[in-house]
């Protein structure tokens, strides 16, 4: 007990005042406070100097760890380039500039406070506003004494370095579309409410509530209120319907637009010619509910970005070497043949050949495998890798936009893939037929009645069009799919749009990427071979791996668990080789075979990674580290096989083939040694054989395959981190729920079909009376909103109920 207390005390003592992390490597005492690194202390100094230490009072240890921050002075030089600045700035005049930065490090109230008090650090900053949810800060500053480079340097100095990447420079996002939708909704809501109010007497038209004068006035007021709805709120639907008709297709918006136009023109006819009341309130209500559904869907997806391409991954600037002098230039200006310098933790921006230095490239971002790959001089290094260790110099072989990986984005297959979507949707198919049927019935009624009484014919014709107005039909799909999207979103599975649900329901082939998707570093399977380890040895090993940032060290550290650490002398990490340590004057080595002097028997390669361990030159044994499957994945594959084909594509060699055959069973097709292009081709072959392919991948190397498949799901450990362009983003923890998601998408398809049946029943009854010319305005006024509301209720309750039953949702409502 006493010991435990001591430990806690020690922990508090060695917690960094700035970032709150334990001080492992060094403990700096400064100004009566403890800091874990120089970076944290520097930030504190800056804030102290400017009397901004309230920062530390709002939230405890609010800072961000500064250990990994780059100390290079010239890394923001590219921001001096006028071409770059003009693209980054929101607004610029000779006096003042406005800029919005995305700062992923914003995480607490202190962050907001500090970033909104920037003006105390620099007088040139006139104001700064934080948007916490979007992790953005908008800064206004005077041009006279501060430029963009100075501003970014200042932010970096206080530990809030903004994330600036190529896609920021290439295109600025426009927020106004979102606002326009709200305006349209507000107008529709306002007009709908008032029209209902003025139509109230009509609902009780049998009982003469008001005189003739009021009726006329109310009708004209309704017309007045309908104008903004018809000419402003509904414009999106006209545009979409027109685009569909122009490309000779029928989408969901065609019947909606047709319905709106019919409702409006017939109501005009009734009010001004026949002196009746029209259906303008129904039109207002229809649009109000439609727009509400649309907004609701948009809100869920605000923060996600699905159409990322390589520009959002790559850095904005590179260090170019010109006669031994460093020059920081924007990536867009990088030419073939130029020499670039890439430092520790930096991304290689273009396919290039290694000139100098020890390259150890971490391709985790590309393949999902995080153990760095060593490269020797003269070797070609593909763009997208991250250098670990010493700076290296490279000669650029291809422009960044034409690298091996970026080429996948320019593949012509993608252009076709995008067009298919508009026709595939179930609702669009049905509504197309529906529209034609309704038009046919309406014309038939017109012709039939015209022989006897032309005005009766007109009445029947319009009654059919209005009563079958596809409101119910139009609403069932967006509401069901919208609700499905929301349910998926709650369980951390984010779809790009509603079409994806329908495509998911049809999936019959599932393709997995191996590394990083099916397997996860955190699930690594570690065994120590070569005798048992004594308690003393494990504590020595713990001490050694704690000092290393190599991913394999992390894994061994995790495997060793929480054990006491031995005191070691002269711990030293030899990059790319291993760790050296002296304990009781004995030399301990941990690392690669050559480093520890281990000899591997024969030429036989052992699958997985090995870490050897030797004492005084005598090999004690080795750690066998194999990539482990994510939790529950073997069951997932079993469940998926149920009527579907399952394939596994891996970029690795097939040393692990047997292991995976055992794990996943014989039904799974395994393919090894697949390059990104191979993966893309493989999916295309599956598609050519009529398969509806679902691809699950994680890295850039899957980007092509993800895009070319019918449904591409990007698996990511952190939703807000980058993931390749895809149809859906799935939290890695929830991958085991994939079969449930697929089943639920089929359920929601059935719900749509059921709601179609429901609305067809309404319509059939309506048509039955309408073609006989028997429908009175009262019946229309009651039937129309009733059918819409019942369909919306049915779909919402239906999806929620089934989601609850399938365990995707905790509560029904």
């Amino acid at each position: 007990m006493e010991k435990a207390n001591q430990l806690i005390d020690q922990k508090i003592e060695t917690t960094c005042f700035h970032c709150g992390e334990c001080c492992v490597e060094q403990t700096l005492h400064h100004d009566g406070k403890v800091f874990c690194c120089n970076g944290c202390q520097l930030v504190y100094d800056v804030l102290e100097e400017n009397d901004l230490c309230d920062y530390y009072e709002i939230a405890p240890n609010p800072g961000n760890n500064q250990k990994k921050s780059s100390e290079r002075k010239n890394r923001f030089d590219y921001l001096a380039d006028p071409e770059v600045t003009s693209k980054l700035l929101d607004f610029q005049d000779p006096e003042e500039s406005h800029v919005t930065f995305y700062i992923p490090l914003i995480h607490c109230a202190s962050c907001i406070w500090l970033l909104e008090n920037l003006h105390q650090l620099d007088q040139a900053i006139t104001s700064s506003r934080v948007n916490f949810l979007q992790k953005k800060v908008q800064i206004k500053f005077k041009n006279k004494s501060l430029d963009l480079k100075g501003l970014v340097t200042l932010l970096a100095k206080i530990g809030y370095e903004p994330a600036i990447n190529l896609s920021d420079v290439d295109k600025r996002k426009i927020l106004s579309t979102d606002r326009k939708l709200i305006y349209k909704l507000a107008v529709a809501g306002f007009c709908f409410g008032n029209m209902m109010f003025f139509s109230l007497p009509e609902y009780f038209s049998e009982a003469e509530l008001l005189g003739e004068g009021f009726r006329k006035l109310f009708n004209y007021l309704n017309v007045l209120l309908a104008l903004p709805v018809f000419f402003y709120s509904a414009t999106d639907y006209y545009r979409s319907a027109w685009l569909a008709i122009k490309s000779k297709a029928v989408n969901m918006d065609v019947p909606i637009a047709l319905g709106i136009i019919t409702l409006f023109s017939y109501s005009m006819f009734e009010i001004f010619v026949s002196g009746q009341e029209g259906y303008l309130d129904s039109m207002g209500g229809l649009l109000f509910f439609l727009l509400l559904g649309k907004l609701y869907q948009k809100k869920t997806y605000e923060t996600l970005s699905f159409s990322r391409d390589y520009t959002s991954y790559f850095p904005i600037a590179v260090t170019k070497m010109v006669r031994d002098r460093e020059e920081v230039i924007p990536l867009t200006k990088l030419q073939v043949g130029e020499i670039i310098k890439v430092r520790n933790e930096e991304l290689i921006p273009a396919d290039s050949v290694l000139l100098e230095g020890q390259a150890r490239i971490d391709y985790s971002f590309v393949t999902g495998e995080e153990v760095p790959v060593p490269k020797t001089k003269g070797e070609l290094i593909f763009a997208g890798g991250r250098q670990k260790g010493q700076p290296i110099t490279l000669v650029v072989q291809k422009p960044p936009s034409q690298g091996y990986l970026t080429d996948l984005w320019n593949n012509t297959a993608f252009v076709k893939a995008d067009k298919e979507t508009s026709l595939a949707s179930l609702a669009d198919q049905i509504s197309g037929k529906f529209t034609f049927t309704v038009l046919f019935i309406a014309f038939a009624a017109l012709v039939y009645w015209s022989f006897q009484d032309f005005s009766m014919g007109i009445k029947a014709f319009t009654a059919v069009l209005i009563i079958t107005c596809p409101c119910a039909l139009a609403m069932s799909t967006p509401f069901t799919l919208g609700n499905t999207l929301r349910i998926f979103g709650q369980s951390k599975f984010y779809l790009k749009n509603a079409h994806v649900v329908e495509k998911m329901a049809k999936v019959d082939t599932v393709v997995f990427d191996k590394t990083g998707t099916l397997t996860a570093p955190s699930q690594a399977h570690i065994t120590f071979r070569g005798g048992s380890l004594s308690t003393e040895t494990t504590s020595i090993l713990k001490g050694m791996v704690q000092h290393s940032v190599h991913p394999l060290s992390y894994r061994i550290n995790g495997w060793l668990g929480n054990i006491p650490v031995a005191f070691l002398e002269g711990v030293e990490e030899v990059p790319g080789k291993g760790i050296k340590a002296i304990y009781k004057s004995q030399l301990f080595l941990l690392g690669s075979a050559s480093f520890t002097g281990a000899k591997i028997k024969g030429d036989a390669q052992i699958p997985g990674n090995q870490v050897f361990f030797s004492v005084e030159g005598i090999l004690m044994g080795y750690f066998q580290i194999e990539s482990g499957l994510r939790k529950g994945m073997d069951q997932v594959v079993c469940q998926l096989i149920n009527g579907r084909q399952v394939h596994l594509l891996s970029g690795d060699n097939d040393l692990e083939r047997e292991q995976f055959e055992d794990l996943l069973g014989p039904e799974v097709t395994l393919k090894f040694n697949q390059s990104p292009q191979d993966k893309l081709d493989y999916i295309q072959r599956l598609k050519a054989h009529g398969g509806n392919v679902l691809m699950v991948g994680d890295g850039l190397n899957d980007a092509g395959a993800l895009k070319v498949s019918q449904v591409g799901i990007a698996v990511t450990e952190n939703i807000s981190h980058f993931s390749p362009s895809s149809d859906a983003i799935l939290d890695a923890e929830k991958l085991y729920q994939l079969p449930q998601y697929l089943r639920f998408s089929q359920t929601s398809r059935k719900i749509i079909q059921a709601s179609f049946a429901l609305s067809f029943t309404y319509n059939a009854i309506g048509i039955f009376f309408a073609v006989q010319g028997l429908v009175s305005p009262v019946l229309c006024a009651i039937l129309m909103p009733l059918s819409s509301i019942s369909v919306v209720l049915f779909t919402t309750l239906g999806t929620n109920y089934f989601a609850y039953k399938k365990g995707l949702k905790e509560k029904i409502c």
Partner: protein
Amino acid sequence: MEVIFLLIGISLVLAGGFLGLFFKAMKSGQYDDNYTPSIRILFEQKVNKKEKKTNYKKSK
């Protein structure tokens, strides 16, 4: 019953006024971020901070 004409006029003007105000609020960016202001309001004003601090210490 003629008073209804007047009432309708008033109700429309009022409702329209609210719609206009909503538009104005949207335009000023009030609805762009509906989380940060809830934190911002809790920050103390900077003006008399030093004095306050000394007072606080004395009372302690």
